[in-house]
């Protein structure tokens, strides 16, 4: 799959995918220090959403997204 170019689009797509089937989704962060790269991936083994960045300011956005996801995952609602 190709990488998303805009963070906003990516965040929206991730949330959509997660809501469609929370039981199947997983989120992967990969940080490669030598390349100064941060890769994010959200997949349910059918669709795969990826985002790649080299900028520090994206860490904050990522944290927000992760916090949201984590909160959803560790909640009592089964949806």
């Amino acid at each position, binding site marked *: 799959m190709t990488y998303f170019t805009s963070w906003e689009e990516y965040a929206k797509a991730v949330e959509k995918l997660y809501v469609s089937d929370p039981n199947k989704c997983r989120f992967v962060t*990969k*940080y*490669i220090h030598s390349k100064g*790269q941060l890769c994010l991936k959200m997949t349910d083994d059918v669709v795969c959403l990826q985002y790649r960045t080299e900028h520090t300011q994206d860490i904050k956005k990522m944290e927000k997204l*992760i916090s949201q996801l*984590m*909160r959803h*995952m*560790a909640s*009592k609602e089964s949806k």
Partner: protein
Amino acid sequence: MTNSTNFVKSEQRWHHIVLGSALIAEAEAIALQKRSQYQFVLCLVYALYPDINDGRVKPKPRATATAAKSSVKSNKASQHTADAEYRCLIRAVLGSKKISTVIAQKDVNKFQLAYCNLLKGNMDGLKKKEKAAKSKAKVQAI
């Protein structure tokens, strides 16, 4: 549910850490230790982790010929799953080192705080914002 058990299948190889805060400490230690290496890749996986086995990490043993008894049990289990609390499974990989933890709802805030600090502190190989330089250039251009 089958999907989550798939995740857990290879669990024997994972060094499972019960406390989220302990995972953070461990991850920090590994990150520091591997700093000098030319490649530093930290992989984190977040997945929904239904509380099927009361926090059991290893896969459930497969149902065998004595299914008569276990069918009653599995009924109970499915009932339990229906109103079970969902938790978040977190895994970190660096080279051959693998650690994992499960976060319950009440620990989410605490874990997030520690985790975000870890990210901010260690992902320092990324490019910094060049806003200051750019705005100066703009002023000069005007």
